[in-house]
Protein backbone atom coordinates (compact mmCIF):
# COMPACT_ATOMS: atom_id res chain seq x y z
CA UNK A 1 0.00 0.00 0.00
CA UNK A 2 2.76 2.40 0.91
CA UNK A 3 4.31 1.61 -2.46
CA UNK A 4 1.31 3.22 -4.10
CA UNK A 5 1.75 6.38 -2.07
CA UNK A 6 5.36 6.70 -3.19
CA UNK A 7 4.36 6.31 -6.81
CA UNK A 8 1.61 8.89 -6.38
CA UNK A 9 3.93 11.45 -4.76
CA UNK A 10 6.58 11.05 -7.43
CA UNK A 11 3.90 11.31 -10.12
CA UNK A 12 2.68 14.60 -8.67
CA UNK A 13 6.23 15.96 -8.43
CA UNK A 14 6.91 14.90 -12.03
CA UNK A 15 3.75 16.70 -13.12
CA UNK A 16 4.84 19.88 -11.34
CA UNK A 17 8.27 19.68 -12.97
CA UNK A 18 6.70 19.16 -16.39
CA UNK A 19 4.42 22.13 -15.80
CA UNK A 20 7.41 24.37 -15.06
CA UNK A 21 9.24 23.12 -18.15
CA UNK A 22 6.13 23.78 -20.25
CA UNK A 23 5.85 27.32 -18.83
CA UNK A 24 9.53 27.92 -19.49
CA UNK A 25 9.23 26.75 -23.09
CA UNK A 26 6.16 28.91 -23.57
CA UNK A 27 8.02 31.89 -22.16
CA UNK A 28 10.94 31.18 -24.47
CA UNK A 29 8.61 31.75 -27.43
CA UNK A 30 6.33 34.38 -25.99
CA UNK A 31 8.60 36.87 -24.22
CA UNK A 32 9.76 39.90 -26.22
CA UNK A 33 13.58 40.02 -26.18
CA UNK A 34 16.79 38.16 -25.36
CA UNK A 35 16.99 39.27 -21.75
CA UNK A 36 13.45 38.21 -20.91
CA UNK A 37 13.92 34.88 -22.60
CA UNK A 38 16.85 34.09 -20.34
CA UNK A 39 14.41 34.23 -17.42
CA UNK A 40 12.29 31.55 -19.06
CA UNK A 41 15.35 29.38 -19.65
CA UNK A 42 16.33 29.85 -16.02
CA UNK A 43 12.91 28.64 -14.97
CA UNK A 44 13.48 25.37 -16.83
CA UNK A 45 16.99 24.99 -15.41
CA UNK A 46 16.11 25.47 -11.77
CA UNK A 47 12.53 24.51 -11.01
CA UNK A 48 11.86 22.13 -13.91
CA UNK A 49 14.93 19.98 -13.45
CA UNK A 50 14.76 20.38 -9.66
CA UNK A 51 11.29 18.92 -9.34
CA UNK A 52 11.99 16.11 -11.77
CA UNK A 53 15.11 15.07 -9.85
CA UNK A 54 13.13 15.27 -6.61
CA UNK A 55 10.49 12.98 -8.10
CA UNK A 56 13.15 10.49 -9.17
CA UNK A 57 14.68 10.50 -5.68
CA UNK A 58 11.30 9.81 -4.10
CA UNK A 59 10.61 7.06 -6.63
CA UNK A 60 13.93 5.23 -6.25
CA UNK A 61 14.03 5.42 -2.45
CA UNK A 62 16.99 6.63 -0.45
CA UNK A 63 20.23 4.99 -1.50
CA UNK A 64 23.57 5.84 -3.08
CA UNK A 65 21.66 6.50 -6.28
CA UNK A 66 19.73 9.36 -4.70
CA UNK A 67 22.98 10.98 -3.61
CA UNK A 68 24.12 10.79 -7.22
CA UNK A 69 20.84 12.32 -8.30
CA UNK A 70 21.33 15.13 -5.78
CA UNK A 71 24.60 15.99 -7.47
CA UNK A 72 22.74 16.99 -10.67
CA UNK A 73 20.94 20.01 -9.17
CA UNK A 74 24.12 20.82 -7.26
CA UNK A 75 26.02 21.17 -10.52
CA UNK A 76 23.14 23.04 -12.12
CA UNK A 77 23.27 25.56 -9.24
CA UNK A 78 26.79 26.45 -10.36
CA UNK A 79 26.57 26.14 -14.14
CA UNK A 80 23.16 27.49 -15.11
CA UNK A 81 23.72 31.06 -13.81
CA UNK A 82 27.04 31.17 -15.63
CA UNK A 83 25.44 30.41 -19.00
CA UNK A 84 22.60 32.85 -18.34
CA UNK A 85 25.04 35.55 -17.34
CA UNK A 86 27.27 34.89 -20.36
CA UNK A 87 24.37 35.26 -22.79
CA UNK A 88 23.09 38.38 -21.04
CA UNK A 89 26.52 40.02 -20.91
CA UNK A 90 27.21 39.30 -24.57
CA UNK A 91 23.82 40.65 -25.64
CA UNK A 92 24.43 43.75 -23.51
CA UNK A 93 27.91 44.37 -24.89
CA UNK A 94 26.85 43.94 -28.51
CA UNK A 95 24.33 46.71 -28.01
CA UNK A 96 20.95 45.07 -27.50
CA UNK A 97 18.62 47.29 -25.57
CA UNK A 98 16.04 45.57 -23.38
CA UNK A 99 12.49 46.28 -24.53
CA UNK A 100 10.68 48.57 -22.14
CA UNK A 101 7.02 48.49 -21.32
CA UNK A 102 4.65 45.70 -22.20
CA UNK A 103 2.35 46.78 -25.02
CA UNK A 104 -1.19 46.75 -23.72
Amino acid at each position, binding site marked *: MSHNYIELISLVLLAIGCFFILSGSLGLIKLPDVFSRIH*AAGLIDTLGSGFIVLALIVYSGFSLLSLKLLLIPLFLIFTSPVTG*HAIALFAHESGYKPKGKNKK
Partner: protein
Amino acid sequence: MAKLNKDSLKTLSYITYFIILFVFWFILSGYLKSLLLFFGLVSVLFVFWMSYRAKALEEDSLPLKIILRLPFYWIWLFKEIFKSGITTTALIWNGKYSPQLISVKASQKNRTGIANYANAITLTPGTVTIEVDKKTFLVHALSKKLSEDLQTDDMNKVITDLDK
Protein backbone atom coordinates in the same frame (compact mmCIF):
# COMPACT_ATOMS: atom_id res chain seq x y z
CA MET B 1 38.39 29.12 14.15
CA ALA B 2 39.55 32.69 14.41
CA LYS B 3 42.52 31.83 16.62
CA LEU B 4 44.17 29.53 14.11
CA ASN B 5 47.10 31.08 12.34
CA LYS B 6 47.40 31.16 8.60
CA ASP B 7 49.43 27.98 8.12
CA SER B 8 47.20 25.70 10.13
CA LEU B 9 44.17 27.20 8.42
CA LYS B 10 45.76 26.32 5.10
CA THR B 11 46.44 22.75 6.22
CA LEU B 12 42.88 22.45 7.43
CA SER B 13 41.53 23.63 4.10
CA TYR B 14 43.78 21.11 2.29
CA ILE B 15 42.44 18.30 4.45
CA THR B 16 38.85 19.43 3.90
CA TYR B 17 39.39 19.59 0.16
CA PHE B 18 40.90 16.11 0.17
CA ILE B 19 37.99 14.67 2.15
CA ILE B 20 35.45 16.35 -0.12
CA LEU B 21 37.18 14.95 -3.20
CA PHE B 22 37.27 11.45 -1.77
CA VAL B 23 33.63 11.52 -0.68
CA PHE B 24 32.75 12.76 -4.15
CA TRP B 25 34.67 9.88 -5.72
CA PHE B 26 32.92 7.42 -3.44
CA ILE B 27 29.44 8.77 -4.21
CA LEU B 28 30.08 8.52 -7.92
CA SER B 29 31.58 5.04 -7.83
CA GLY B 30 30.08 3.27 -4.82
CA TYR B 31 32.83 0.63 -4.72
CA LEU B 32 34.05 -0.78 -1.43
CA LYS B 33 36.76 -3.23 -2.60
CA SER B 34 40.17 -2.31 -1.26
CA LEU B 35 41.90 -2.38 -4.65
CA LEU B 36 39.36 -0.03 -6.16
CA LEU B 37 39.48 2.21 -3.10
CA PHE B 38 43.23 2.40 -3.62
CA PHE B 39 42.75 3.42 -7.24
CA GLY B 40 40.28 6.04 -6.03
CA LEU B 41 42.88 7.34 -3.58
CA VAL B 42 45.41 7.58 -6.40
CA SER B 43 43.05 9.53 -8.64
CA VAL B 44 42.03 11.81 -5.78
CA LEU B 45 45.71 12.49 -5.05
CA PHE B 46 46.25 13.26 -8.73
CA VAL B 47 43.39 15.77 -8.77
CA PHE B 48 44.67 17.26 -5.52
CA TRP B 49 48.13 17.70 -7.03
CA MET B 50 46.65 19.26 -10.16
CA SER B 51 44.62 21.81 -8.18
CA TYR B 52 47.65 22.56 -6.00
CA ARG B 53 49.71 23.26 -9.10
CA ALA B 54 46.93 25.42 -10.56
CA LYS B 55 46.93 27.41 -7.28
CA ALA B 56 43.23 26.66 -6.86
CA LEU B 57 43.64 26.10 -3.13
CA GLU B 58 44.16 29.67 -2.03
CA GLU B 59 42.03 30.83 0.84
CA ASP B 60 39.70 32.86 -1.32
CA SER B 61 38.60 29.97 -3.48
CA LEU B 62 38.11 27.49 -0.65
CA PRO B 63 36.48 29.40 2.20
CA LEU B 64 36.36 26.97 5.09
CA LYS B 65 34.05 29.05 7.20
CA ILE B 66 31.06 28.78 4.94
CA ILE B 67 31.17 25.06 4.24
CA LEU B 68 29.07 24.14 7.26
CA ARG B 69 26.52 26.84 6.50
CA LEU B 70 26.20 25.90 2.85
CA PRO B 71 23.42 23.25 3.17
CA PHE B 72 21.18 25.66 5.08
CA TYR B 73 21.95 28.36 2.54
CA TRP B 74 20.99 26.01 -0.28
CA ILE B 75 17.69 25.19 1.38
CA TRP B 76 17.00 28.90 1.81
CA LEU B 77 18.02 29.51 -1.80
CA PHE B 78 15.67 26.80 -3.02
CA LYS B 79 12.83 28.48 -1.16
CA GLU B 80 13.66 31.81 -2.83
CA ILE B 81 13.87 30.12 -6.23
CA PHE B 82 10.49 28.52 -5.67
CA LYS B 83 8.84 31.79 -4.67
CA SER B 84 10.14 33.84 -7.58
CA GLY B 85 9.60 30.87 -9.91
CA ILE B 86 5.88 30.93 -9.13
CA THR B 87 5.81 34.68 -9.82
CA THR B 88 7.65 34.24 -13.12
CA THR B 89 5.37 31.40 -14.22
CA ALA B 90 2.32 33.54 -13.49
CA LEU B 91 3.88 36.41 -15.46
CA ILE B 92 4.53 34.16 -18.45
CA TRP B 93 0.99 32.81 -18.49
CA ASN B 94 -0.88 36.09 -17.95
CA GLY B 95 1.50 38.25 -20.02
CA LYS B 96 1.70 41.18 -17.59
CA TYR B 97 5.47 41.47 -17.70
CA SER B 98 7.23 44.82 -17.79
CA PRO B 99 11.00 44.21 -18.13
CA GLN B 100 13.27 46.75 -16.52
CA LEU B 101 16.89 47.36 -15.66
CA ILE B 102 17.89 48.16 -12.12
CA SER B 103 21.21 48.50 -10.33
CA VAL B 104 21.81 46.58 -7.12
CA LYS B 105 24.52 47.22 -4.54
CA ALA B 106 26.52 44.33 -3.15
CA SER B 107 28.09 44.48 0.31
CA GLN B 108 30.20 41.31 0.22
CA LYS B 109 33.85 41.66 1.14
CA ASN B 110 35.66 39.15 -1.06
CA ARG B 111 35.39 37.98 -4.63
CA THR B 112 33.76 34.68 -3.75
CA GLY B 113 30.95 36.44 -1.98
CA ILE B 114 30.31 38.78 -4.89
CA ALA B 115 30.29 35.92 -7.39
CA ASN B 116 27.97 34.04 -5.06
CA TYR B 117 25.54 36.94 -4.87
CA ALA B 118 25.57 37.49 -8.64
CA ASN B 119 24.95 33.79 -9.18
CA ALA B 120 22.10 33.75 -6.68
CA ILE B 121 20.43 36.67 -8.47
CA THR B 122 20.71 34.90 -11.81
CA LEU B 123 19.55 31.62 -10.34
CA THR B 124 16.27 33.00 -9.05
CA PRO B 125 13.96 33.07 -12.07
CA GLY B 126 12.91 36.53 -13.16
CA THR B 127 16.17 38.32 -12.42
CA VAL B 128 19.43 38.11 -14.36
CA THR B 129 22.72 39.79 -13.55
CA ILE B 130 23.96 41.40 -16.74
CA GLU B 131 27.06 43.24 -15.69
CA VAL B 132 29.17 43.21 -12.55
CA ASP B 133 31.04 46.33 -11.60
CA LYS B 134 33.08 46.36 -8.44
CA LYS B 135 30.22 46.71 -6.02
CA THR B 136 27.16 47.29 -8.18
CA PHE B 137 25.32 44.88 -10.43
CA LEU B 138 23.25 45.73 -13.47
CA VAL B 139 20.21 43.49 -13.11
CA HIS B 140 17.46 42.80 -15.61
CA ALA B 141 14.16 41.99 -13.91
CA LEU B 142 11.00 40.71 -15.55
CA SER B 143 8.54 42.79 -13.55
CA LYS B 144 8.32 45.58 -11.03
CA LYS B 145 7.48 43.24 -8.16
CA LEU B 146 10.54 41.07 -8.78
CA SER B 147 12.85 44.08 -8.86
CA GLU B 148 11.32 45.43 -5.66
CA ASP B 149 11.88 42.07 -3.99
CA LEU B 150 15.52 42.33 -4.92
CA GLN B 151 15.83 45.90 -3.67
CA THR B 152 14.65 44.94 -0.19
CA ASP B 153 18.24 43.66 0.17
CA ASP B 154 17.32 40.41 1.97
CA MET B 155 19.38 38.22 -0.33
CA ASN B 156 22.36 40.55 -0.03
CA LYS B 157 22.26 40.33 3.75
CA VAL B 158 21.99 36.55 3.83
CA ILE B 159 24.96 36.10 1.51
CA THR B 160 27.03 38.65 3.39
CA ASP B 161 26.27 36.85 6.65
CA LEU B 162 27.37 33.59 5.07
CA ASP B 163 30.95 34.78 5.18
CA LYS B 164 31.07 36.09 8.74
